[in-house]
């Protein structure tokens, strides 16, 4: 079974009360979109923070990633709001 590390930043970390976690990936979850749905299905704050109409960015192994980006064992995935540096 594939295990990934997930990091949450800024408003997403605060809303979910989670900075990072290790997750055993169900075989049905193949990509970022699938993972987002899985997390959303936890309900409560997760449902709201990762709602479909919310602008949430993702990165895989520290590169920006789209919904279709496939996930593999050992990946470092991150979810965060659109960036606001500079």
């Amino acid at each position: 079974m594939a295990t990934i590390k997930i990091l949450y930043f800024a408003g997403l970390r605060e809303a979910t009360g989670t900075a990072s976690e290790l997750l055993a990936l169900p075989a049905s979850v193949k990509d970022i979109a699938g993972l987002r749905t899985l997390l959303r299905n936890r309900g409560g704050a997760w449902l709201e923070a990762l709602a479909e109409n919310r602008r949430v960015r993702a990165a895989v192994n520290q590169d920006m990633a789209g919904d279709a980006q496939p996930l593999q064992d050992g990946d470092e995935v991150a979810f965060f709001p659109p960036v606001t540096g500079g």
Partner: protein
Amino acid sequence: MTVRIQHEDFDVGREIAALRACNAQIGAVASFIGVVRDLNDGDRVEAMTLEHYPGMTEKAIEAIIAQASGRWQLYDALVIHRIGRLAPLDQIVLVVVASAHRGDAFAACEFIMDYLKTRAPFWKKEQTPDGARWVEARASDDHAAERWRTKG
């Protein structure tokens, strides 16, 4: 090419002098300094806290500089971005680009800043009289980065 993420302030004069030291081929140095304002979206800002994604931040900015180097003739580039708690008037970010001529230096400096705004994983939380709030990303920043796709 140098990328530094740090809590401490930076000395612009010293950074520019160091960047162009010993290279007499450099004929143009362009720089940008981003500063904390005391007003945003109509509210007074007392302070802000900058958070980032260690590792990805450096990687993303290095990729942005590499893209700029592929597009314009650059001798060197430097990006310093501060994190942690900052107050109005504080410096946030410095971009310095050295080239033979001003055209390349100006363009690369603006390009790096526009891409940093939309691709480097930093987030600002503002302290206002009504409490703390995360700064929302601006569509105008997306547009600023987008126009480089078509512009020479």
